[in-house]
């Protein structure tokens, strides 16, 4: 899933899922496939909310950090 770049100045979701719900979907998309309704909710939310676009990028950053930590600390399965 690719996160679009939002041109919104801030988070102003007026009708889409709340940030809390959107955050849950963004997180769960890393562990399971979202259905088309959930995906649409998320895309509408992203179009209105820069904070959540950033949050999604930071989830990727966090995931990379965890992988790098595993490599750096010699952690493996």
């Amino acid at each position, binding site marked *: 899933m690719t996160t679009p770049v939002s041109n919104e100045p801030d988070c102003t979701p007026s009708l889409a899922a709340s940030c809390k719900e959107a955050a849950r979907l963004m997180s769960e998309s890393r562990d399971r496939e979202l259905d088309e309704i959930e995906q649409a909710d998320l895309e509408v939310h992203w179009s209105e909310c820069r904070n959540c676009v950033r949050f999604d990028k930071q989830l990727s950053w966090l995931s990379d950090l*965890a992988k790098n930590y595993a490599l750096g600390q010699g952690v493996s399965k």
Partner: protein
Amino acid sequence: MGMVMTLAVHDKNALFLEIESHRGFLIRYATAKLREKNEAEEVVQEALLAALSGIESFSGTATLRTWLTSILKYKIIDFQRGAYSDREKFVQPPNNADEGSDSNDPQWFDQFFDETGHWTTSFGQGCQPGNALEQKRLFAAFEHCMEKLPKTTSRVFFQREVMGEEVAEICKDEGISSSNCWTMLHRARVALRECLERSGFCNA
């Protein structure tokens, strides 16, 4: 000028067909929200009419489907306001359990969102440490932040993101459901992001 606007100017019939091609999805979407197909079809019809009459406001920054879904959401909200305005609002029962359940977040997690579900925390742009020393500091902060999580949540996150295990495998190890696992992973990610930002990482 985007394809849709080009169609709007040159061929109204083609524009209608382009918008109409999303009707099936929109009905499925509205049915999922309203739980009633007849009502969903009615609301979708209104949304499509609104889209056709307001096509000049479609900027093309989002896809046509996303734009149509936005319009539909307004229509669904209008519909629900009318249909359910007399009903009592659902009140979520308090839950102070350490880990919370799938549907009720524990107190420690509630701090990240206000009562309307919006973020209460600040957002930087994200960053990567520039050198080995910063990398070491980042790893130390990461460990510190993981230690602050509830035990099971921390363990599930570690297995998933650090060890790279599949959710099914983690569920089996921990004896928890998939949805419980997704919820714990979500809470861990939100809390860790916040903790790392407070530690000076992830800032613009």
